[in-house]
């Protein structure tokens, strides 16, 4: 189960499991966003390399346009994946 939508703060909120089967859903949602963006990951339980690819693709697109992507409320397990992947050096990350 994976869900992506805007929350009350106007940020993107992800929840559930962002795996290879859900990556296309996340990508098509994020492709519509322009300008600075924060993704609230408070409800995200799991991410695989397919999900990391979605985030990297969006971040590169936004940085190319002079804006950026911030990842907030990241749980410790997912933060470990970000560290293993070197994403902690590429993204602004705020841990839950």
């Amino acid at each position, binding site marked *: 189960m994976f869900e992506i939508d805007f929350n009350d703060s106007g940020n993107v909120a992800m929840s559930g499991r962002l*795996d290879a089967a859900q990556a296309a859903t996340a990508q098509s949602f994020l492709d519509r966003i322009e300008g600075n963006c924060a993704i609230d990951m408070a409800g995200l339980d799991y991410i695989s*390399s397919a999900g990391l690819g979605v985030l*990297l693709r969006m971040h*590169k697109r936004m940085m190319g346009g002079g804006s950026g992507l911030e990842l907030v409320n990241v749980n410790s397990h997912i933060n470990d*994946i970000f560290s*293993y992947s070197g994403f902690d050096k590429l993204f602004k990350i705020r841990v839950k």
Partner: protein
Amino acid sequence: MMKNTYARTLDELARIVADTEGFFAQHNIDESLRMKVDLSLEELFVNMITYNTETDHEVMVEMAPIDGGIAVSLTDHGVDRFDPTLGGEVDINAPLDEREPGGLGLYLVLKMADSIHYEYHNRVSKITFTNRTDVGESEQHV
């Protein structure tokens, strides 16, 4: 011991996760291992169905409880040799403009698994990995 087969489609990931959850509960395997096991299972399964296009056999997944953890095997029939333990090099220190989506899957498997072993006989690939609660990150090996 559990042995299941899965069709070569991403839709099967949900069933793999459900079966893994059930196996963990049935054998009282520490839930702290779930993320690592789920990740390695997904990455190896997706790698097989994406690149082993020369076969239409279902992928077999076996799980067995071991002392302090779990052993998981994925077997693919009718395929060319591909040893995932030999790859997975990613420059995680590269700047953003040099990073490209893709290539992280096997790298993460090698990071997450406490051990990983590859066998290839008669066009059958079998990958076995283990995760245990009593193995620290510094003790992990390939």
